[in-house]
C-alpha cells in the first residue's frame, strides 16, 4: 500500500507548536501532535536551491489586546521552485492572509517573508508594487479584472506597468490569450465574458510578466464545475511548465491537483501532504507522477482485494 510510505511531515513545515516564538497559550492539540513537528527551514537551505517563497515565524494579527485575532500565527513554510502548493483550511483559518503576505499585498506583524531570495516584509508600498509586477502574478476569486479594459488590454496591463513597450505587451498578451484559448475573445470587455473566461483572462494576466510565482486566492470559488475544470487544466499545464504556484482553496478537489497540500487551522499549519510521489522539492513536471495513477482508483472501486 502506497499510503504507508507517507513522507515524514517535518518537511519545512511547522505549526510553531513549541519554542519561544509562541506568544499564545498552547493551541488545541498542539502537545499531542507528534506527526507535525516544528522544522527550521534554515537548516534545509543548503539542501536545495533557495525556495521561491519562504515564511519564517510569520505572524499577522488584527486588532489589539483582548480582541486580537491571529490570522497567521508564527508560521514557517518553504515553497521550492516549480512546486504547486495548495493551502486549504476552513474559512477564517488565515490562508488568504498568508497568500496576501506572500504577495506583498499585506505586511506581517512579525516574522519574515522571502520571495526569490529577497526579504520583502519590510518593503514600502512603492517597492512592493515594483516587486509584484515583476515577480508575482495574482489570480483572485472575484477575478478583479479592470472592467473598462478589454481582455487583451487586461492582460497587457501588468506588462505596460512594468515598462514593456506597447508592441511587446501586445505580443505577449496575444500569446497568452492563445494559451488560455481566448484569442477570439481578446477584444471583449470582462462583462461580456463568462466566469471561466474571465478567470482565464486573469490567469493570462498573472503570467504576462513571467512571474516567479503565481498566487491564486480561491481561483475557482466563483466558478461552476465546468469552468473549474478549465481553470484546473490550465493550472496543470502551468505545473507541467515548471511554474511555481500557490493557491488557496477550501475545495479539496482543487487542492488535490497540486503537488503538495498544506492545511491551516487557526493561523497555523495543521498538515502537510505531498501528492507528487515525493519527487522532491525541485520536482518539475507532472509527467512522472501520472504513470501509476490507476492503483489508487482501482482500490477505490474495490478492484484490489
Amino acid at each position: 500500500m502506497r499510503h504507508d510510505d507517507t513522507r515524514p511531515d517535518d518537511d519545512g513545515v511547522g505549526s510553531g507548536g513549541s519554542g519561544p516564538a509562541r506568544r499564545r497559550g498552547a493551541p488545541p492539540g498542539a502537545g499531542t501532535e507528534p506527526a507535525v513537528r516544528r522544522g527550521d527551514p534554515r537548516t534545509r537551505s543548503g539542501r536545495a536551491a533557495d525556495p521561491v517563497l519562504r515564511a519564517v515565524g510569520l505572524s499577522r494579527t488584527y486588532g489589539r489586546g483582548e480582541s486580537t485575532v491571529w490570522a497567521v500565527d508564527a508560521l514557517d513554510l518553504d515553497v521550492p521552485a516549480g512546486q504547486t502548493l495548495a493551502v486549504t483550511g476552513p474559512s477564517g483559518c488565515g490562508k488568504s492572509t498568508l497568500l496576501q503576505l506572500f504577495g506583498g499585498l499585506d505586511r506581517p506583524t512579525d516574522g519574515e517573508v522571502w520571495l526569490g531570495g529577497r526579504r520583502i516584509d519590510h518593503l514600502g508600498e512603492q517597492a512592493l508594487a515594483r516587486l509584484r509586477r515583476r515577480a508575482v502574478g495574482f489570480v483572485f476569486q472575484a477575478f478583479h479584472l479592470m472592467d473598462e479594459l478589454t481582455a487583451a488590454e487586461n492582460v497587457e496591463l501588468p506588462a505596460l506597468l512594468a515598462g514593456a513597450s506597447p508592441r511587446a505587451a501586445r505580443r505577449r498578451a496575444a500569446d497568452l490569450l492563445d494559451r488560455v484559448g481566448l484569442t477570439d475573445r481578446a477584444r471583449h470587455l470582462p462583462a461580456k465574458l463568462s466566469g471561466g473566461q474571465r478567470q482565464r483572462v486573469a490567469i493570462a494576466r498573472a503570467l504576462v510578466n513571467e512571474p516567479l510565482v503565481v498566487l491564486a486566492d480561491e481561483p475557482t470559488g466563483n466558478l461552476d464545475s465546468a469552468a473549474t475544470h478549465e481553470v484546473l487544466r490550465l493550472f496543470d499545464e502551468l505545473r507541467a511548465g515548471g511554474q511555481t504556484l500557490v493557491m488557496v482553496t477550501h475545495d479539496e478537489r482543487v487542492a488535490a491537483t497540486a503537488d503538495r497540500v498544506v492545511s491551516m487551522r487557526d493561523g497555523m499549519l495543521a498538515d502537510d501532504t505531498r501528492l507528487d510521489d515525493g519527487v522532491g522539492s525541485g520536482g518539475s513536471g507532472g509527467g512522472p507522477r501520472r504513470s501509476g495513477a490507476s492503483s489508487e482508483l482501482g482500490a477505490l472501486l474495490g478492484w484490489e482485494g
Partner: protein
Amino acid sequence: MQDVVLALLAKEPSHGYDLRRRLAAALGPLGEPLNAGQVYVTLTRLEKAGLVVQEREDAPVRGPRRKVYGLTAAGQERVAAWMAEGVGPRADVSEFHLKLVAAAESGLADPLALVRRRRQELMRSLAEAQRAALAHDANSEAGLLLEGIALRLQADLRWLEACARTWSARASRGNGGGDA
C-alpha cells in the same frame, strides 16, 4: 466489530454490559439495534481465538453477575496492529469513527494522528481521481464516474475536518476523549 471490542478492552478489563453501553454511546442512534447478545457473542469468539480472557466475575449489589474480560498478549498485538493500519480507501464513516473512539478510549493512538493519516490517504486518492478527471472530458462517461468518486472523497475529507475539530477540542480539554 472484533477490533473495536478489543480496543475498548485495551485500557482496562471490562464486562460485556459496559462494552455495549460504550459502543451504544459512540454510535448513538446507529447503535440502538446493537443488543447485548451480539457483544457477548463477539467476546466469546475472541476468547476462543485466544485474544481475550475472562479475568474475574463481578457480583454487584443488584442485578446479574458479570464476567470481566481482559486482553491477552496476542490481543494486545492485534489491537496495536489494527491501530497502525489504515482503514482502506473504501472504508465507511462508522468504521473509521469507531476506530477514533477506540483509539481515544484505549489511549493506544492519538485520534488526531489517525485523522491526519486518513486525510493524507484520502487526499492522495483524490489527487489520483482529479488527475484522471483532468485528463478526461468532464462530460464523458468516465468523467462522470470520476466526478462521483471525487465528490465522495471530498465528502469524506470534509467529515475528517469535522473530526479534527472535535477531537482537537477534546484533546485540549484534557480528557482524551472519554465517555461522550
